[in-house]
């Protein structure tokens, strides 16, 4: 046996900074989360992905969408004050980048 501690299937790694939640018990170590994350929040471990820098998560949602076993959850959305304020002022539910927003 490898010297890797077992993880309960229902274990949830929360953090108080953002909405990223990782359930290592469901991870099959496919490596997708560490492949897609632009901020190195996950890295590949020996038996399962390691949530190494949760505080750097920008909630883009790439890891959740590409996780085939639902081991990652995040309330994804744009970290854009202009979009949120505009949505609040116009009563729009959709908070997203618009044609008259920033230069990206």
């Amino acid at each position, binding site marked *: 046996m490898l010297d890797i501690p077992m993880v309960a299937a229902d274990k949830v790694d929360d953090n108080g*900074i*953002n*909405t990223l939640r990782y359930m290592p018990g469901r991870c099959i170590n496919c490596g*997708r989360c*560490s*492949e*897609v*994350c*632009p*901020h*190195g929040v996950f890295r590949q471990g020996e038996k399962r992905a390691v949530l190494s820098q949760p505080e*750097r*998560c*920008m*909630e*883009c*949602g*790439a890891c959740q*969408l*590409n996780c*085939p076993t639902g081991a990652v959850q995040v*309330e*994804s*959305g*744009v*970290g*854009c*004050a*202009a*979009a*949120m*304020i505009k949505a609040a002022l116009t009563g729009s539910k959709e*908070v*997203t*980048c618009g*044609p*008259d*927003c*920033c*230069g*990206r």
Partner: protein
Amino acid sequence: MGEGIATATSELTSRDRWDHVQARLGYRRMQHLVAPGLYRLGSPSRSSPVFVSANYTLSFDALRTSLRGIDAFILVLDTKGVNVWCAAGKGTFGTEELVAKVRSTGLAEQVDHRRLMLPQLGAPGVAAHVVKKETGFTVEYGPVRAADIPEYLRRGEATAEMRRVAFPLRDRAVLVPVEVIQSLRYLLPAMILLYIAGGAGAMMMAVAAVLGGTVLFPLLLPFLPTKDFTSKGLVLGAVLALPFAYLHAGSGASLWTAASFAAAIILLIAPVVGYFGLNFTGCSTYTSRTGVKKEIFRWVPIMVAMLVVGGALMATTLMIETGWL
């Protein structure tokens, strides 16, 4: 099946470059379009790689110029003229559109392999395992930046550096023209009003505040103290207000009115720059929705209060100086 295959090159024409300038200036910003569909770059064979891109000229052109000397297919998704990352966030650079384009272009009949290379920043819109199930094609996320693709292909894998999004000076600087141009619709009326109300000095305060928020803020972002964007803007705004306070103090004001004018001008300029800072969060490459929401609730009430107090203080100071009070 098969919409016909177009041809692309790795060269930029003067027309392409002019289009890029217009895009960077925000001119007709939703009109920098590439026709969606399948493209041949060079002379691809049945084993050549397939790269997926967005139908925004800056995205497509970054990819094709980075692939100089590489024979490949490029599959352009219809993202409504939006770049890869933003379109992925909206879902237009997404699983459904990718599956539809793989089918409608008859890609499976053009190549023997079953691999698609997507830009890493397309991942917020694409579920790789669903694409595999629906089309048989395996999604491979290439590097964040198209310029790293040749090196990525040589290595056969991405370095940690290739997978990270940074926000270097160059990336911040290219956003400045759009920021300035979009601010003009507020700045020009404000300049006229302030010129009428208070002369050239008052007008220059508006110029300093807006250019501080749209030019200096993006350029100085990592060097400004404090952590969140709004407080960085407040600090920058307070610094920009100081010369005006100094000039006013030198124009024969009493110690008390000079001090209250200085306080008023800081309270007025700092929140304007702070608000530009707050709104720059979406242009950055690392802010989260949770973090920005906290920032809005924390700073917007404070900035409103600063403007109210600053306005009242300024009015009182000017009335005392002109003998009205």
